[in-house]
């Protein structure tokens, strides 16, 4: 009796544990350990391979690498911030202003573009913005511009493209927490003399902080590791660090340096998330929704 019960528990435990374990080891742990190992290996002039820090030092010695890196991190911050600026009012509108029926409709409308792959969405943006694109044709057609203007292949259009592909991941978690904000808290603050700015600052922000942080983290990681949008919309002067990594692996077949660069990207994203959580006094378990 006791034995059969115990073995039952063990079986159900294994059923859930094995997929998680395999997932983590095969897809995350092993490749990353291998990447770290690769990143510390280099070949010298004589073709002899051995342990080295060279893959990392080259990053700091070649401005093209660390400039691309800082640019990528900087623009990731910008995109995250722009997504937040868009996400907050949109979430507020969805949760607190419109009725239940419209809310479902708006959420669907926001989700619809994500039914197609990112590459199709980016080509959609390109169709709009390029020299022979729809916007140019309309504006030239009605005579506002004398001749078409190239709006693609610069930083602004690239940031626009990334914001477009990432905003959803900001809106969804913020809508989640804002939904749980009792309307009467907002009314109570208003009743006690607070204006709209104070209500946002003292009531809505603190309440939504876990959702805001999880939105920011997801968006930041997605943007930092994005490859398609910067490649298609950024043009030759808008290099993204993922393109550097791609080049190392594919163009130069330098897996060691590629691994080192990949590991640098992982380090910076972990560091940024950790310090953001520390700064805002949030816990990872709360932000990721494990503990309410």
């Amino acid at each position, binding site marked *: 009796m006791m034995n059969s019960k115990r073995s039952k528990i063990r079986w159900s435990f294994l059923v859930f544990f094995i997929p998680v374990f395999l997932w983590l080891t095969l897809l995350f742990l092993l490749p990353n350990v291998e990447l770290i190992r690769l990143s510390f290996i280099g070949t010298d002039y004589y073709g002899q391979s051995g342990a080295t820090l060279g893959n990392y030092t080259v990053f700091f010695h070649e401005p093209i690498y660390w400039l691309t890196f800082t640019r990528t991190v900087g623009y990731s911050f910008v995109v995250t911030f722009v997504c937040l600026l868009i996400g907050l009012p949109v979430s507020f509108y969805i949760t607190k202003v419109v009725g239940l029926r419209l809310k479902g409709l708006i959420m669907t409308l926001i989700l619809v573009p994500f039914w197609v792959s990112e590459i199709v969405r980016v080509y959609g943006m390109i169709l709009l913005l390029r020299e022979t694109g729809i916007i140019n044709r309309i504006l030239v057609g009605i005579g506002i511009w004398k001749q078409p203007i190239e709006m693609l292949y610069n930083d602004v259009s690239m940031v626009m493209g990334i914001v477009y592909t990432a905003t959803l991941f900001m809106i969804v978690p913020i809508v989640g927490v804002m939904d749980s904000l*009792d309307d*009467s*808290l907002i*009314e*109570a*603050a*208003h*009743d*006690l*003399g*607070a*204006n709209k700015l*104070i209500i946002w600052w*003292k*009531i809505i922000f*603190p*309440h939504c902080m876990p959702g805001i942080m999880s939105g920011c983290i997801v968006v930041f990681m997605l943007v930092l590791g994005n490859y398609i949008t910067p490649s298609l919309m950024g043009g030759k002067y808008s290099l993204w660090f993922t393109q550097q990594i791609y080049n190392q692996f594919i163009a130069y077949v330098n897996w060691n340096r590629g691994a080192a660069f990949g590991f640098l990207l992982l380090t910076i994203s972990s560091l940024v998330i950790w310090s953001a959580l520390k700064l805002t006094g949030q816990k990872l378990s709360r932000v990721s929704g494990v503990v309410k």
Partner: protein
Amino acid sequence: MKLALSVREITKKFGTFTAVNQVSLDVEDGRFFSILGPSGCGKTTLLRMIAGLTEPTEGSIEIRGQNMVGVSPNKRPVNLIFQHLALFPMMNVEENIAFGLKRRGESNPAIRKKVETILERVDLPGFGEKKIDQLSGGQKQRVAIARCLVLDPAVLLLDEPLGALDLKLREHMKVELKNLQAKVGTTFIYITHDQSEALVMSDKVAVMNKGIFEQIDTPENLYYHPASSFVAQFVGQNNKFIGKFEKDISGSFFVVLEDGQKLQVNSVPTLKPGDRVELFTRPEAMMINPNPELSDINVLQGKVNSILFDGGNSRLMVAVGKLAKEVIVALPQNTLHDHIQPGDKIKLGWNTASSVCFKDTGVKTYDEL
């Protein structure tokens, strides 16, 4: 006496639905005023209009003589205690109470002093550092009250704040709220669907139904002299008899019940002989086996169906004649009536002056037979 609040013919429509219909009320400074009504009668809408959270469709609101229409809630000298209190969970008790004072730009030492004083006044000294979720139901209640009172509002609005508490605490808070109001002297406007809360605490009560005030009066008058059939049924418990209003040769008035029994009543100027009427008698006005020598009493023969023992609120359910509805009779627990058993035949009597009569409107307060 100065008016704290004056509402004139205020109306609120939501689409085609009229939630509040041409309601007027005046509340004098320092009074405890209650608005009593069933859920959905428009009392919360009325309160929200006074607080400024809902704009009236028409009508005017004056607080201490100043017109409030178009003034946003943060600029009105009224504060609202929400049904679920709406304490800010992201702040501790002190920050909650200081919230309104900070918005007024008062200095930090002044704020700290005021918060301390008000916490003592609501019997929570030293609770400033506590988090909201560390407080019990009654303590949260008092923090919510303190958060509003510290702003010294002209009128404090309370939206059924005791609804979420359990029975014992509710009974306790009833008395405490009344005492607190007497102590601070702020005008309270309290809305509730619980007639006992309204009767116990208030100086005056407005009974509201379907967007209008049925009666504004003292608790005693509401109970003993209801102005409408609705008030008679909603405030306290009442026995309802339906019959025909008649006048006999001697000039006295009667209600003839469906089964032919006659009940004597006092004259009612608004009723004509032949009208269908409702007659109400309180359970505690019923005498069990009354002294036959008494004059001016109605006597009915009945059979005890059941005894509902509820301590001081014990009642008899008595079947009378062929009437479909049982008559409820208060059963005093003074050992005089201990002999009564279910199935016993008893006489019920009441003084004609203790019943009231209204034209039958078909108003029901619950799904009765």
